[in-house]
């Protein structure tokens, strides 16, 4: 099975396609920074801003269906103590009103327990065995954010350093360009998801960006390795050699992506809800990473 991607012919198209993607991401990031309620490049989740999140199941069958989130909040307002919190409460129900999830600003453990007790009075009985409650103070949130951003920057720096030592300057530069291209687009997609679906990012999103970085660089390195090898041994022209190398590594890169995507897909389908967006952002990163390794990074190397 031989592949024949016409890289040389399509160089323009590839680079303009990537430019469009990057522009769309930048628009999303800018829109999110200036035109949303949270005024951040991306919708930061509870991990970073602090707050309280409770998910709990109700013990009921058919009678579950007869309640509306608004009426529950109304009740909670009446009997609860902390008004400030209740003005910013968000209540959602899933699975035929059986699964309740609540988001509030930061509460003390005592207040949070009170809230659940009140909820039990209104729409109980609740199944405490299925409770999932997370409570993060605003101070810790800020610290986590700083922590995540430093981890990202430090490891990007480490990866860049490694590549610069390992390859010539030109290769290193293009591998890094491809890497930042991937990260920017995934970031942009999540900016848009935040704007449209109010999807929030948490510390696992930072982890996924880092994993994507490692992965994308890995893919590009494999192809650049092949290009160097072919340039040394073959007598064909420079551009033809690059195109040949890409075609020779095409199978490997797509297969690798597929074998990594399969477990991720099963995580998306069967995994716990807390891993859903994480798996999704990894999958997106891997798809974009393969594209940039196969098509974009080698296109940079082509001579006009």
């Amino acid at each position, binding site marked *: 099975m031989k592949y024949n991607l016409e890289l040389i012919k399509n160089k323009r198209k590839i680079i303009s396609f990537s430019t469009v993607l990057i522009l769309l991401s930048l628009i999303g990031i800018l829109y999110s920074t200036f035109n949303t309620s949270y005024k951040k490049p991306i919708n930061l989740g509870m991990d970073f801003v602090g707050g309280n999140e409770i998910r709990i199941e109700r013990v009921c069958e058919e009678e579950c269906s007869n309640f509306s989130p608004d009426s529950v909040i109304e009740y909670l307002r*009446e009997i609860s103590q902390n008004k400030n919190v209740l003005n910013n409460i968000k209540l959602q129900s899933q699975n035929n009103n059986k699964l309740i999830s609540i988001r509030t600003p930061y509460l003390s453990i005592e207040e949070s327990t009170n809230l659940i007790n009140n909820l039990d009075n209104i729409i109980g009985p609740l199944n405490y065995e*299925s409770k999932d409650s997370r409570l993060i103070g605003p101070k810790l949130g800020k610290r986590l954010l700083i922590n995540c951003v430093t981890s990202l920057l430090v490891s990007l720096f480490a990866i860049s350093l490694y590549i610069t030592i390992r390859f010539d300057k030109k290769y290193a530069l293009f591998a890094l360009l491809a890497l930042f291209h991937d990260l920017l687009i995934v970031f942009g997609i999540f900016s848009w998801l935040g704007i449209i679906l109010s999807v929030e990012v948490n510390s696992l999103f930072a*982890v996924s960006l880092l994993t994507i970085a490692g992965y994308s660089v*890995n893919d590009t390195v*494999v192809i650049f390795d092949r290009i160097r090898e072919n340039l040394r041994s073959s007598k064909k022209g420079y551009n033809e050699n690059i195109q040949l190398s890409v075609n020779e590594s095409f199978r490997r890169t797509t297969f690798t992506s597929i*074998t990594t995507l399969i477990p991720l897909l099963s995580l998306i*389908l*069967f995994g*716990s809800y807390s891993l859903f967006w994480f798996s999704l952002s990894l999958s997106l990163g891997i798809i974009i990473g393969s594209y940039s390794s196969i098509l974009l990074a080698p296109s940079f190397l082509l001579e006009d």
Partner: protein
Amino acid sequence: MKRRQGWLFFIIFLLTLSVYLLINYPLQLGLDLQGGSQLTLQIIKEEGKVTNDELDAVYSVIDRRVNNLGVSESNLQTLGGDQLILELPGEQNPLVASRVLGKTALLEFRTQKEGTSTNLKNLQIQRLNIKELTEQFSISENSQYDANLIKIIQDDLKEIEQELDYSSTSSDLYGKLIEIKKYIDKEITNLFIKTDLSGKDLINAGRRQEQTNSNWEVLLTFSSSGGEKFAKLTKSIAGTNQLLAIILDGESISEASVGSQFANTGITGGSATISGNFSAENARELEVQLKGGSLPLPIEIVEANTIGALLGSKNILKSLYAAICGLILVGIFMIFNYRILGFVSVLSLVLYGFLNLALYSLIPVTLTLPGISGLILSIGMAVDANILIFERIREELDDGNTLTRSIDSGFQRANSSIVDGHITTILSCFVLFLLGTNFVKGFAATLGIGVLISLFTSLNCSKTILRFFTTYQTLRQKSLYLPRKNFSN
């Protein structure tokens, strides 16, 4: 060939060893998989960094309090130099723990300043009023919403505020009640002068129910020097109208007079009781705090996660399905595309899985949800190495090389790419592990371990198994190693 056979035995040995390890040392499951609560305690220091000595001191106080609380199988660790993590497995309510641990529990004994009697009496009356309002408020909470009652409480509260010349800042009624109570307790404290007797002079604390009513009291036992100080202190104010206040964290919890019969010797015997209208719960909490000593630095609970046991076991099942499903599909994909080679990679993947789990139980790595996703992701990366090698082997075969030579040079030529890819991932994992939070650390640990093991299994085990296969004549047909299409040509 002999050396390869040695490797084969080594691999079989490793497999047996890891199965043995897994049976005898079961995996440690994180709280998100077994259910339980996790509290993160932040040490607060206004200036400068928390030193190691201070961290140790806080740790030992918290540790004593946790032990005195009697929570089973709890686990306390330090994190990042100024944080502590407390894990409470199972269905234990983190509420009590949070109340007991969060307080500094600095106990002081103070004597009343001269000429403050009227002031004190006034404050004590207001404290009683507030107490009554709080009781009324909790009654209203547990019954039907009654706007009238709330209005009455609000009006009374305003009067008290005027009397005290203090306006509360809380936004809701309950918060106001608590705030004013605190204010009064602090004002009372200000009417008293510090003495040299404090919580440091205690050797034990206990509690018992008062005989006359259902309230509880807390018993204090002083050290011998503490007992002497207490006797001297009580002697100095016995029979006067000066009161003795017991103050916890700057708020007076009890004021008492000392009878004139103690004027000669003071209260001897080295013990005292605090009867401040404690409920059974409050008395127990104070007992635990006093037994553990006061915290050298205040702490704040900055994070609390609770996961029900049922949800934990659901999480295990879900991740298990995801992992098994992923593995089987990857296996099918590999065998379908690479045939014999694919089968080899499946074998080495199984070994990879066992080695990973065995290392988790050996190190030990506590398995959490992000940890499992790290493991699942690392499967993909382990397969990547195999794909790189197999593609090279096929190219060599296409060039007309013999099977043995193709296999050898396939492994050799894929080597540098594999090592490069693994190193970039290990770099990321290393940084994540150093800088990341607990949650992130779990992911970095399993992914990092996975990638390290994959270096061994893909470069060595795959090769050994492949070599072993090629010793059988029937498995040496080149066609078994090439893609299906070539086969049909």
